């Protein structure tokens, strides 16, 4: 399973990638939307884990662009902004609630990734 992690905090995203790798996921990471789009050009991913709030391109914008390129790609959003309600209101068009709140619990993320793939 190939996972693309996108977050503007390099230290965080790189470490998270390493942790997921340890759990058997094939992970690539990017720190900007453009970087992520470039990665998608050369590789195929099953799931993208996107931070909602990033400079230049937000998680939602990036999701739309990624979805246009890879319609089969699934998405999980990360937010540093608190609760479900807040997140829900911002990501209404996602259709299903794949969201996680930072700081992350790795077990929850792994479980979500598996759920997403299973659909």
């Amino acid at each position: 399973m190939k996972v693309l992690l996108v977050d503007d905090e390099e230290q965080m995203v790189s470490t998270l990638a390493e942790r997921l790798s340890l759990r058997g996921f094939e992970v690539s990471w990017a720190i900007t939307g453009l970087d992520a789009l470039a990665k998608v050009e050369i590789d195929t991913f099953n799931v993208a884990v996107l931070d909602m709030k990033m400079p230049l391109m937000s998680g939602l914008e990036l999701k739309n662009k990624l979805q246009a390129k890879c319609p089969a790609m699934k998405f999980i959003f990360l937010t540093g902004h608190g609760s479900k309600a807040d997140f829900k209101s911002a990501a209404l068009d996602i259709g299903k609630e794949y969201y996680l709140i930072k700081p992350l619990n790795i077990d929850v993320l792994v479980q979500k990734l598996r759920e997403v793939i299973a659909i």
Partner: protein
Amino acid sequence: MISFRSLKPYFCAHKDSGTGLFKHLFDYRRMWKLAVGFSVMFALVPVLCAGIFDFMVTKTSMEGELFQRTARVVSNTRRSVTFFMAKHRSALKFIVRSNSFEDLSKSLQLYRYLEDLQVTFQEGFTDLGVINGAGIQVAYAGPFKLEGMDYSGQQWFKEVLLHGVYVSDVFLGYRQVPHLVIAVRHKLQDGSVYVLHATVNTVRLNSVLTDLQLTKHGSVFIINRNGILQTESRYYGKVMERMTLPVPKYSTKTQVKEVTSDDGKQLIVGYAYIENTPFILLVVKPKDDLMGPWYSTRTTLLAFLSISIMAVIIVIFSVITHLINKIHMADDKRLAAMHKLEYENKMASIGRLAAGVAHEINNPLSIINEKAGLIQDMFLLKGMYAKDEKLLSLVDWILKAVERCGTITMRLLSFARHIDVSIEQVNMKELLDEVLGLFNKESEYRGITINMDVESDVPVIESDRGKLQQIFLNLVNNAFAAIKQDGILDIRVEGQNPTFISIIVADNGCGIPQENLDRIFEPFYSTKKKEGGTGLGLSITSSLVHKLGGTLEVDSKIGKGTTFYIKLPLKSKNKKMEKL
């Protein structure tokens, strides 16, 4: 019964503690005093002036009429008395003109005339006498033997010779009957004179006066110029006694004056000097008797005026008090709105700050989380240092601390987000846990036990999470302020009712005195102003509960504690506010 306190205007308790924009617009007590003062003055001064003017005009006119009426009575009576005298004098003149001196000198002839006069004047004449020029009574008809008496030395004889007519003062005769003497002089052709005199009974004169119908205490009588009563008077003495009132000054015309009697009574005295007699006719009336109708009118007028003034004052008081109460209430509402706005702005600022801080902290926290997580992974998944329990437990602690920090930032964000009204599904237990989470440390330090009892079947309600957080934050804050060391805070949530849920927040703190209990939801009412209380906490809490369609009640006992009862509807009526 209405007590004075209940009539006391609302604004009397007004105390301005704010400054600048948060101050009341006016000094309501001063405003009330000025408004009432000016209104009463401008309403009553014209009424009083008109009343006094009318009073004086009516009084003057009444007195004028009284004087005129008295003058009329005096004039008419004077005519009667003058006529009485003239009638008797004319009778004597007729006798002397129609008879010769020789005829009249015969007593028999004189007796015949006396008899005729007595028949004509109804016993008025008592005797008749003829006195020659030398003063010797040559003939006499009457009850006494007076023939041959010498009157030449008598003053009255000299006067009659000088003036032609003489009327004597009244005197009491032999039978103690008042009489007067009328004498006329007649000149004979040879130039000699003689005098015909008659004694006249004044009973007839008395009856002329008593026939006048005067008021109850009025009196008509005659005095001589020395003030001796010539006729009977009801109140001022008997015949021949001295009158108690002073003798009025000579005047040819009828006069009316106001006199104060010896006993201090105001009297209206009308008088007239009777021509060719020593008599003064007096009409005396007590002023109070005559002014009786005026006094009753005056009493009615004063009563009417007093009632009108009272009515005007009551109306002015009520209207002005009512209006100023309204203005004061409007001002209170304005201030409350301003404070609320300020409070909300403050909350919004705090919210924005909290959100910023939480977000900024979240990022490094995530890095710590991931780095520590990786260390743990390396231990557990890669087997490096797998046997080093100490290191494993250290990493565990780091991850737990990160989780705690995460919970705190989440709460901060949660509070920051609910500044605006938005209706959503709220689980009361979760919400109360969130609120109480903010008090964990304080309750630990102060040894306060928090018991939360949420019934298992409490449904999820439709409400505004942010507002509910504010409500319970305020209530728990208040409870913590009231609770001493090692106190207890009980929170119970009941959900049996199909339309609402009840939340009971009870502390065992110091309690609220009964007199303050009625006012604790009023804006700016605070017993902690010195400690920085704004008096807005419970007012805002109450208004928030009402905004959410609920009710807030309080019960408190000094020393036992305070309990707040909150009822919140299951469904929000405020659909317009819903955002989700």
